[in-house]
């Protein structure tokens, strides 16, 4: 069949063309398919994001905040969980039954609950924060219309104890403020993490990563000492009609703060109920004041250290001295005749301090005060510590007469922490230790001792010993109310007038009284400072010294400090043991 063969010939001729065309089409498809696999990076990421958003949910996991302990491991903080309860009224099946159940659990008014459960809104807030027990009881109802949201909370089991030292946490347990909570927020807070969780039921559920937890902090505070200081302080404030008061107790040998008490204080578990925001301020580190006659000790120390005066120094007190064109007088305008350093300190003589300051000169005086740490924050480790104000020549507001005023504690601002740190340096043979409130930081790797070095040597050992003897005599002659029969106490009372824009306040309740003392004077183990604002009586020796005596009585028991006779006996025994050991060697 010629016709058929022609047709076959045509097909045979066209078949390669069709095949080629099909191969071409297939190649195009393959190229497109390959091209489809190689998107630009941005497109690929976007597609991956869309993909994972379908299969994954991002959960924000709040980090568990680190704990705070006292020096003996007693917990001062806890993390607890509270809940916020909400309802989807559209999903409520039986509003009346649910209302009754919730009313019992939450102790809420039934009518109020009913309105919420039958609201027109898509979502209605019911109650919060509610306790963990209430939250668990609500969860046990297993009602799909109810939604519980966890709220991490900080709980302070000791209540108001050391509230200003520990601080508080804001924003659902995330941001620490005040005290150690504020100063060490980044250490305690840990890391808030966004965890991507798979919705696919075949993927293994992931556990919360442990490394996000905040680190624990061990304080130098002694809970028992803190408690008794707070008890004594409250009593002192009430008895003396004072506006408020503070007590700091420190170990001068290492700078550890054993107690820091303020009255009035607050309960950090209920800080939202505080109506007076000033209660949240820690006056011991966040407020400055003119130290008054306490400063005379630093003036005498600086003068002795500079060599301008000696321990035998005395002057003729005529009750008046002129510096920078301004006359300075003693209190009650008295002249005291021949007076030594003890006399200046015991009677708080303005003229005596100014005379010592003049003897050493302005440069030595201010460099001495700077060495004692005035005008600089101590770095004790508490939130928002003030640095005080010490004006030098050339600073705004400084004048020649300010030099005289500064010598007895006026026209300069200090914090209580600065003053006790300076006195601790004298007690510690002239070596100033870094004051600190944090003893250890415990992380996943284990505890790490907070490294608190020596700040500097402020005085020579000889000057420090002279000062100690002077302060022992000052207690005997100027503040016998602080005298303890079986212990040698060194200390100095202070009285400061309150400076206002129109001058110093006068009249009743117009002074700040204080007392700083340490014991045993020859080998000090503890230094304590009492400060009362606006007491009924005016002078430090009559108000603050008796309070110091009371707290010292407590401290020697709590810190197990034996009296002088026992210590001497111990020293004899130790010396004998050492001698016998040397003989054996």
């Amino acid at each position, binding site marked *: 069949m010629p016709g058929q063969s022609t047709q076959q010939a045509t097909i045979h001729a066209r078949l390669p063309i069709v095949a080629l065309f099909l191969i071409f089409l297939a190649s195009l498809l393959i190229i497109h398919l390959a091209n489809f696999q190689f998107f630009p990076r941005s497109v690929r990421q976007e597609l991956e994001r869309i993909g994972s958003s379908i299969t994954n949910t991002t959960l924000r996991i709040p980090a568990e905040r680190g704990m705070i302990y006292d020096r003996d491991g007693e917990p001062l903080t806890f993390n607890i969980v509270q809940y916020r309860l909400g309802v989807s009224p559209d999903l409520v099946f039986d509003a009346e039954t649910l209302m009754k159940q919730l009313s019992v659990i939450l102790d809420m008014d039934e009518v109020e609950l009913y309105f919420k459960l039958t609201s027109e809104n898509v979502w209605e807030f019911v109650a919060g924060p509610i306790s*963990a027990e209430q939250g668990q009881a609500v969860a046990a109802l297993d009602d799909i219309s109810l939604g519980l949201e966890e709220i991490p909370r900080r709980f302070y089991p*000791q209540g108001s104890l050391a509230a200003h030292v520990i601080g508080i946490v804001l924003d659902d347990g995330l941001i620490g403020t005040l005290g150690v909570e504020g100063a060490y927020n980044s250490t305690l807070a840990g890391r808030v993490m966004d965890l991507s969780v798979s919705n696919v039921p075949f993927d293994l559920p992931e556990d919360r990563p442990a490394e996000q937890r905040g680190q624990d902090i*061990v304080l130098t505070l002694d809970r028992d000492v803190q408690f008794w200081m707070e008890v004594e302080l409250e009593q002192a404030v009430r008895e003396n009609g004072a506006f408020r008061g503070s007590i700091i107790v420190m170990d001068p040998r290492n700078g550890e703060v054993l107690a820091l008490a303020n009255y009035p204080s607050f309960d950090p578990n209920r800080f939202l109920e505080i109506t007076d925001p000033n209660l949240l301020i820690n006056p011991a580190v966040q407020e400055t004041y003119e130290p008054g006659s306490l400063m005379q000790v630093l003036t005498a120390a600086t003068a002795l250290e500079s060599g301008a005066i000696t321990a035998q120094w005395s002057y003729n007190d005529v009750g008046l001295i002129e510096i920078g064109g301004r006359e300075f007088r003693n209190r009650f305008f008295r002249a005291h005749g021949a007076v030594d350093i003890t006399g200046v300190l015991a009677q708080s003589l303005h003229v005596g301090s100014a005379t010592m300051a003049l003897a050493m000169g302005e440069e030595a005086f201010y460099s001495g005060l700077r060495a004692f740490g005035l005008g600089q924050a101590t770095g004790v480790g508490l939130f928002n510590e003030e640095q005080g104000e010490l004006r030098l020549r050339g600073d705004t507001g400084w004048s020649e007469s300010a030099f005289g005023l500064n010598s007895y504690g006026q026209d300069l601002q200090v914090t209580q922490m600065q003053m006790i740190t300076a006195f601790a340096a004298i007690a510690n043979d002239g070596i100033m230790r870094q004051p600190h409130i944090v003893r250890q930081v415990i992380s996943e790797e284990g505890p790490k001792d907070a490294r608190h070095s020596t700040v500097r040597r402020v005085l020579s050992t000889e000057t420090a010993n002279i000062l100690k003897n002077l302060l022992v005599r000052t207690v005997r002659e100027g503040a016998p109310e602080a005298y303890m029969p079986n212990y040698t106490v060194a200390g100095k009372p202070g009285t400061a007038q309150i400076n206002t824009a129109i001058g110093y306040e006068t009249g009743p309740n117009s002074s700040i009284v204080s007392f700083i003392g340490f014991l045993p004077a020859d080998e000090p183990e503890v230094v304590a400072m009492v400060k009362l604002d606006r007491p009924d009586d005016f002078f430090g020796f009559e108000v603050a010294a008796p309070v110091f005596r009371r707290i010292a009585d407590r401290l020697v028991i709590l810190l197990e400090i034996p009296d002088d006779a026992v210590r001497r006996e111990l020293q004899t025994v130790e010396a004998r043991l050492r001698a016998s050991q040397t003989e054996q060697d």
Partner: protein
Amino acid sequence: MSQAWFQHTFSRRRFQTQSQATAIAILSVAILLILGSLYLSQVAAFAITNREIEDLIARRDEIKQQNEQLIGEIASFRIVPRLYARAVEIGFRPATNDDIEYLVFESYNPNRQTRAFAAAARHSAEPAASDYDETFGGWLQSQFDLLRRQFQAFGE
């Protein structure tokens, strides 16, 4: 007719091979079904296990919370004012200096020991800052320590 039927039957011989293929296909489907059901049962068991693990994690978290709550409550019961009030209730009073008698024993260290914190004692803590050394070497060491701490703090 019979010839046509024979031819038809004969021509179906070609389907002999198709019936084998069908049998193989059916067998394959059966195997696939078995494998599929095995896979599904495994996946279902896996999903159930995961749900159980999730529930256990939630339960563990809840128990941890309850535990912390209890520790908190215990700590609340151990606060000093409460202990003090209880002690007074049962007849104790705060000691005074007159109540305390110190006895001197040879070879006993009278210095107050630092009580080790139980949690910290589990680990070996880094040594505390060394004593103040006033020599040039001591000063150099303190400066080096300071620099090292600054670097460490920067690293953290």
